[in-house]
């Protein structure tokens, strides 16, 4: 079993060598002319605007949270996959139920509009992200 991992190790080392050695050689031979444009961050050819240290939109957090939760549940799939053959149908049904519950959660998130980037039915409180109070006061409230 360790031998299998040895193969993987050799493979990984080869991958590293094969990537970094050409890069190293290239840095030796390539000419180097530093201009402001070249030193700038590469953003798909667009001109970068402002600092990278901006505050992100709060939506990122929400999406990240949702991602986090669903992502972590996958942890359970790995041990399941290991014993799937031995346990057969029972394991399949169990995991089906598990995923079904997750899907209900997904449906919930979807319905609540948390997957939409622009969310209309959110009424924020009195803090920084409060919307124009006159627009949304008294409307239905969704969840973050």
């Amino acid at each position, binding site marked *: 079993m360790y031998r299998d991992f040895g193969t993987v190790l050799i493979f990984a080392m080869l991958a590293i060598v094969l990537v970094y050695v050409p890069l190293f050689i290239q840095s030796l031979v390539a000419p180097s002319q530093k201009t402001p444009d070249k030193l700038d961050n590469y953003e798909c050819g667009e001109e970068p605007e402002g600092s990278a240290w901006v505050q992100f939109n709060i939506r990122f*957090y929400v999406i990240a949270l949702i991602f*986090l*939760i669903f*992502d*972590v549940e996958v942890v*359970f799939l790995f041990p399941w996959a290991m014993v799937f053959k031995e346990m057969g149908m029972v394991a399949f049904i169990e995991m089906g139920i598990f995923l079904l519950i997750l899907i209900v959660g997904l449906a919930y998130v979807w319905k609540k509009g948390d997957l939409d980037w622009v969310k209309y039915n959110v009424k924020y*409180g009195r*803090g*920084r992200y409060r919307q124009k109070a006159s627009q949304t006061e008294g409307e239905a409230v969704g969840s*973050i």
Partner: protein
Amino acid sequence: MDNLQTYLYISAILFSLGLYGVITRRNGIAVLMGVELILNSANINFVAFARFGGMNFSGQVFALFVIIMAAAEAAVALAIIINVFNNLDTVNIDDARELKL
């Protein structure tokens, strides 16, 4: 590195760092990170014990569950902190002092 003690030391250091973070950091998110450190120190313990103690899988299983729970807890805590931020315009937990004797 294949020595149980080493892992226990690492875990203990991690635990202490977590405690320190929880107690000293003002930022709510940083406090949460401290909590995560504590949880992960326990996780290291579990896995190390399971690996070196010649025990059954319970340690690993426990670690899996802890990961899940840590994620859920982090999600809930972050949501709450965002909500506090919305209302109070701050994530500093010592600014939340309205409720007291």
